[in-house]
Every structure is written in C-alpha cells, then in structure tokens.
C-alpha cells in the first residue's frame, strides 16, 4: 500500500515552446505503491509533463526527480527505472509472444541467459506456455493487454506509466486488468495512469487534473467529488475543464 516514500518529486516544473507555456510551475509528489491518475483535456499539457518525467524532454525550469534521478542530468537512469505501456504503442503484431518479450527485454538491456530465464518466467506467470510461438496478431485483446503490461515490467522498474491502458476492451477484461494493477501496486510498484476515461480515473488513489498547463485539482477521487459536489469524476472533470 501507500507509503510516504516519494518516488516522483516535482517542484515548479515548467516547459516553454517559444512563447507558449506548455506546462506552468507544476508541484506534486507521487508515493511508492501509489496509483496516481494524471488527467486533463486534449492539449492541457499532460504529454509534455510525461515526456519530461520519462527523461525524453528537458524542462525549461523547475525541478523534478523520478526514482531519485534528476530529469535534467540523469535521463538514462530515469529511463531504466520506469516502464511504459500504452494502448497504441505496445506489441509487434507480427512477432510471436516469445519474440516480443526477448525484443523488449533486449531494449531494456537484459542479455543472454538472464533474459532467457526472465522471458520463460514471464510466460509461465501469464500461463501462456502453449502460446509461446503464437503471433501477437492472433491473440485476443485481453491477452495482449496483460502481455504488454508484463513486458513494461520486465526490467523491474520502480514506476510504470500507463497511457490509456484499458481503452476499447470489454468490461470484464478491464476489471481483470485493474486487479493486476492493484496487485503490483500492493507490492510497492508506483503506477502513473493517464486517461480520457473518467471511470478509469475512479480506480486511482489520487488524481491530478490539468488545465492549460497548470494542475488545477489534486486529491483523492472521493475528496474531489465532495469538493465539486459531483456524483462522479466525469462531472468533476467537466466542471473544471469547461
């Protein structure tokens, strides 16, 4: 469960593109084992903030550390400490399950016998031994999602970024996936979720909502609902972003 150990620490984080301020003095912390939702309308600045936290973009000013590493100077260490999964960018459809795992493991710097063992372990944990050589294209969406999630964790990151993780899957599969997220979080992994779907946001421990480059709300879903006198997060979001 949640602890007080900070794994993401952001202070005054700002990014400008020319005259345009994409993110404007963000301040927030994310704790170990927390499921943190990062919401905002299209163009609110979410992607810019995430790119910085993933070590892919330099901020203009302010401070941020991810897993204890500085996002200005230690971007390679940041990248090694995080996992990333998105609905759109995930598995290679024309590679088999085993090939996908080996490929991503290789990208994360795992090699040789160790990678082989890790790959086989993962397939065993997924219960997909018989599907080792099956092409990803021939698998149902629910499997793909679990595989993509496991692959994002292959290098044992401290934080995993999930970009709209459950869009387009059926509600049963979606819940199995959230069971999995709760399980890894209970073991101390920090889960950072972005989504447009407010019912997905309700599963998070805390939510931040961005509007025009600023964080305009940050609290637990319950407290946000009572603060905005809203029946659900969708209503909170519409009240803030409209």
């Amino acid at each position: 469960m949640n602890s007080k150990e900070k794994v993401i620490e952001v202070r005054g984080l700002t990014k400008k593109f020319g005259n345009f301020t994409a993110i404007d003095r963000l301040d927030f912390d994310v704790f170990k084992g927390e499921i943190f939702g990062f919401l905002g309308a299209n163009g609110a600045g979410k992607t810019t903030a995430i790119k910085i936290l993933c070590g892919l973009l330099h901020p203009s000013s302010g401070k941020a550390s991810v897993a204890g590493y500085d996002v200005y100077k230690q971007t390679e260490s940041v990248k090694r400490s995080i996992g990333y999964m998105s609905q759109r960018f995930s598995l290679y459809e024309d590679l088999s399950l085993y090939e996908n795992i080996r490929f991503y493991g290789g990208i994360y710097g795992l090699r040789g016998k160790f990678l082989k063992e890790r790959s086989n372990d993962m397939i065993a944990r997924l219960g997909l031994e018989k599907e080792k050589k099956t092409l990803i294209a021939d698998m149902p969406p629910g499997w793909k999602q679990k595989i993509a999630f496991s692959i994002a964790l292959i290098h044992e990151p401290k934080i995993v970024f999930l970009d709209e993780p459950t869009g387009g899957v059926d509600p049963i599969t979606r819940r199995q996936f959230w069971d999995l997220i709760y399980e890894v979080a209970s073991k101390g992994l920090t889960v950072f979720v972005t989504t447009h779907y407010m019912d997905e946001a309700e599963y998070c421990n805390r939510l931040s909502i961005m509007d025009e480059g600023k964080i305009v709300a940050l609290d637990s879903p319950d407290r946000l609902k009572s603060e905005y006198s809203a029946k659900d997060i969708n209503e909170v979001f519409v009240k803030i972003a409209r």
Partner: protein
Amino acid sequence: MILIENISKSFGKRLALDSIDLSVKDNELFGLIGPDGSGKTTLFRILCSLLLPDSGKALLNNHDVVKDYNKIRRIIGYMPGRFSLYNDLSVEENLNFFARVFGTSIKKNYGLIKDIYKRLEPFKDRRAGNLSGGMKQKLALSCALIHRPEILILDEPTTGVDAVSRKEFWEMLSGIIEQGITIMVSTPYMDEAVLCNRVALMQEGRLLRVDSPQAIIDAYPKDIIALRADDMYRLVMDLRDFPQADSVLLFGQEVHYSGKGKNIDRDAIRKYLEDKEHKDIQINTISAGIEDSFLQLMA
C-alpha cells in the same frame, strides 16, 4: 428504419458476425455497445454497402444494402472510426468537397450543421490535420451530415476524445435527432449507453441483448451491494473467497458484490471481513447500473 435479418460474415475461419437480427426505428438514437473485436465495425461496413455479407439481408429505409448500394450511399452519412478526411485540406475545403461530391452546397444545408459547424468556423482556414481530436470529430460529423442523410452511421465517434468533447458530441447527437434523422452509433464505453433510446450489447459477433437502457438495468436479477475498506486489493481477494460470493468486481473505489442467491446477508459479510481484519468497512445497498447489467449478461 434499419432492418437487419440473419446477417453473417466470416473472415477466413473467424466468424465476425453470427446471424444478426436487429431493427432500428425511424428517428431512433440506437447504440451498438461492445468491446474491440466484437463485430461492430463489420456490421456498420455492411450497412454502408462497403462490405458484402456472407448471408442474410439488410434494408435501410427499404433499400437493400447489396442491390441498391447506389441509393444507400446517398441516404446515409457515415463517420468511420478512423479519421478519414483530407488532412491537407482546410476545414472549409473538406466540407465543400463533401458537399459537392453529393451535388449540394454548404449554404443549402447549413441549417442542419449550424450548431456543430459554428464551433469550427473560427478555424475554417486551418488544415484538418492540425485540428485537435475534438475538433476533428466535429468536422467529420459535419461532413457526414452535409448532404442531409436520412440515416447517420457513426463508428466509435468518441474513442480517444476527452470527456468534455465527448459530452458536447452527445449533445450534438440529440440536436440531430430533433431534425428527424435516424442515428446508429457504436461505442466501447458503457456510460454512453444510457444516452441512447435503445442499445444492443454485442460480444463476439452476437447480440446479447437489445432493449432500452432502463429495461436492461431493471432486468438485473439480484440484490447488489457496494463495499469499501482501507485495502481495496485485499478486500476484493477476500470477498472472492467468501462462500456465498458470485460476482465481485471493482468499480473505481468500490467493489460491487452479488451473491449466489438473490438476497445478500450483509451482517454475515461484515463479520467475515472483520474476522479478516479489514478496517473502515463500508457496506451500502445500491441499485444496479448499466455496467452491472452488461457484466452480468457477459459473464
């Protein structure tokens, strides 16, 4: 109206649509609800005369989708799931292009698209490729409407669009219904189902149920409670081990529980959870929502 009789379609060995029967009334806002891969797009492509069924037939306002495909294409407006306008044409050029393909003009049918297009007009010289997701969606809807179709077919128009734009989009659909047009819309999102007059729940190429959202909710057969405790993951796991448990599912910050029989012994559950040392236990009786009903139908 739309009349679908016994439509089946396979791709190789995979049966994408399995004997679909369905009718949509005139001026109805009809929702096709189902996950990716359930067959929604295949059905829409058949209705739009873009794909031939293996068997069965479908009529749109009495025109056959196979034999009368020319007529079909004039009476429908179709918004495919993927953005299919011209990225290197401006907003206005796209709209003009679609109007002229159908032998009409923006001016002639402006009344129909006014409420939607007025939000785009400040950007009418911007290239479509440079629009935000929500604006692309509004332009695509305007282009699908510009020839004043009798039937509008919208394939997942709100996928990948933010919550505010989604809300606006559904408000626009109510406006279109008021103009006498029939709408068939698909979505993977259960919360949008309640905004339709009737919905069909689709799974693996079959229709599980067709009814009004309220009737689907009312048909939920059991009592249902919502539970919370300090450690939600442990709560779910323990509840699933409770001997009387049938369905234990996460709903955001709550767990929805229904038992093997109709009734629920709340005291027994509370005691069971207290014995397992859960803290801050809250138990509330709730009425089922549309998603509870769908989950129950899909299980």
